[in-house]
């Protein structure tokens, strides 16, 4: 079996081949022995090149969370991962919410002229206030949220155009 994963914009190629009771894993061209010792309740115990490894996992939609040795990873199927940071929406520059929050105050209106760094709106979550600033000088092309609205992380809040 051959598989491709994406994590943080990097794509990995993995192939698995059954060999008796174990597997031969080829990860980005390098070969390893993989022996499955046990699998239960979201915990995989394997020997990887003879060394024990405990890997916890949890599926989350089409993504897969994995944890090993204090590090947490999220693996996606390639191309599925939305990539919000390269957001050019409708010709303008998109302004994203940095966290899940509630909109406390919208300080500009559509059509307003703003300078880079001007505060566009205020968000609040867990009693913390976040000031969302304009990433560039220009005009507020679109304002996509209103006072009191709940927003997700990476949701587009506004667009700044020329």
């Amino acid at each position, binding site marked *: 079996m051959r598989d491709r994963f994406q994590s943080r914009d990097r794509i990995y190629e993995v192939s*698995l081949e059954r060999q008796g009771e174990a597997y031969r894993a080829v990860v980005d061209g390098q070969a390893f022995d993989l022996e*499955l010792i046990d699998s239960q309740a979201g915990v995989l115990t*394997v020997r990887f090149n003879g060394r024990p490894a405990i890997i916890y996992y949890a*599926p989350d939609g089409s993504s897969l*969370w994995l944890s090993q040795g*204090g590090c*947490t990873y999220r693996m996606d199927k390639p191309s599925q991962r939305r990539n919000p940071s390269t957001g050019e929406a409708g010709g303008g520059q998109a302004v994203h919410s*940095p966290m899940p929050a509630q909109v406390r105050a919208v300080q500009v209106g559509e059509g307003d002229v703003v300078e880079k760094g001007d505060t566009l709106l205020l968000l609040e*979550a867990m009693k913390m206030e976040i000031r969302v600033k304009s990433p560039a000088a220009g005009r507020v092309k679109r304002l996509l949220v209103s006072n009191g609205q709940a927003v997700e992380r990476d949701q587009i809040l506004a667009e700044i155009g020329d």
Partner: protein
Amino acid sequence: MFKKILVANRGEIAVRILRACREMGIASVAVYSEADRRALHTRLADEAVFIGTAPADQSYLSIERILQAARQTGAEAVHPGYGFLSENAGFARAVKQAGLVFIGPPAEAIEAMGDKGAARQRMQSSGVPVVPGYQGPDDDATLVRKAAQIGFPLLVKAAAGGGGKGMRVVNEAGELEEAIAGARREAHHAFGDQRMILERYIPRARHIEMQVLADAHGNVLHLFERECSVQRRHQKIIEESPSPFIDEELRRRIAGSALLAARAVGYQNAGTVEFIVDPECREYYFLEMNTRLQVEHPVTELVAGLDLVQWQIRIAAGERLPFTQAELSQRGHAIECRLYAEDPANNFLPATGPLLRFVEPQGPGVRVDAGYTSGDAVTIHYDPLIAKVIAWSGDRPGAIAKMLAALRETVLLGLTHNGQFLQDVLGDPDFQAGQVWTTWVEDKFGDWQPPQCELPPEVLAAGALLRLQGQADASNAEPSGADPYSPWRNASSFRVGKGGV
């Protein structure tokens, strides 16, 4: 002793207090909001009373509903935990007027310390050193004028504040007015009080605080210091005791001032006097007194060998502290790390999401105070603290090593958290040398990124194996919305009731 106590809080501190009640043979009452219907604290209590919708002002901040829950269950005393109503003098008073006991200081002591400006004055006149600054009429014009006298950098700080909320560092005069406005808004939301004070900002300052414990019979003791200089956004993330900075002589002096501060306001119960220490001249200044249990109380418990929550309850019940200052001592070294749902690579902004899997670390000398279990969710409504991991060892290097081992064993899947960041901070040579200050995290880790951006091959191979076995896709394994850990095929039809956050 009380027969029944109501715990007016949620999360890990509610769980901590409920356990103490259980060990003391005291029946416990939890209160919960809509969002916490299935939260750990509501399940561990002997009784649990619903008090309102998710927003805190409709539930955990509602004095009326909490007192109603106490009356309804016949609780004799109320433990406020930290945050929420814990430093609300009106609540302490209302509890007393309802004929119940408030497990905390007298309302007058809360009031005296609650107003940062008045507290500064009181401490000054009691001989406790305070940071040069200004408290008084706080219209913007006055603050701007006073700021110029104090000089920059300075701190704008909510008079009613706590926990780093409503606070801004101002580096130059031009930033001042916007900082005041922002701090006022934040303070208004957090405390309903937007009065501000000013303080000189001490660069590379260390945050050192003294735990005090005072009974109703005039005994006021200290349980030594905690160092909490590792902070982000003015909030502590790693605390320890003893401090790697202070020596016996400085400890004695700071403790003396802490006792003076507590006595000055007629303090009773557990409290913490916070100081900042200037590392250059080794001068220390009173910052504020937290008139409640602190998040970081476990490090003191482990080093002093006392259960602070149980002593809070005993003191509130009128018991006398049975030990003297001379009988108390520090043994070994304890460190606490706060596991937050937040993104250290994104300005430490809070994250939300489900705890698909939470496995606590184990082993000798490791303690975990958690408010969540697998299957819970961190929501937008409350503090993003998931759990505290505390490690004790005979010395500081041993405690750091134990903490690192514990964090490597911790599993937290389903949301963004600071587990990896904490490991990097603990592994930093400055931290290991004890060379930290309150802005050290920002200064040193401002552009932090997870160091292991590359997935290790064993994790990739495991992922491939899971896909091969058809186990890597939730939609493939369970009808959507089902509990992914349910052992049952028909689990999706099983969750009923009003729960679900």
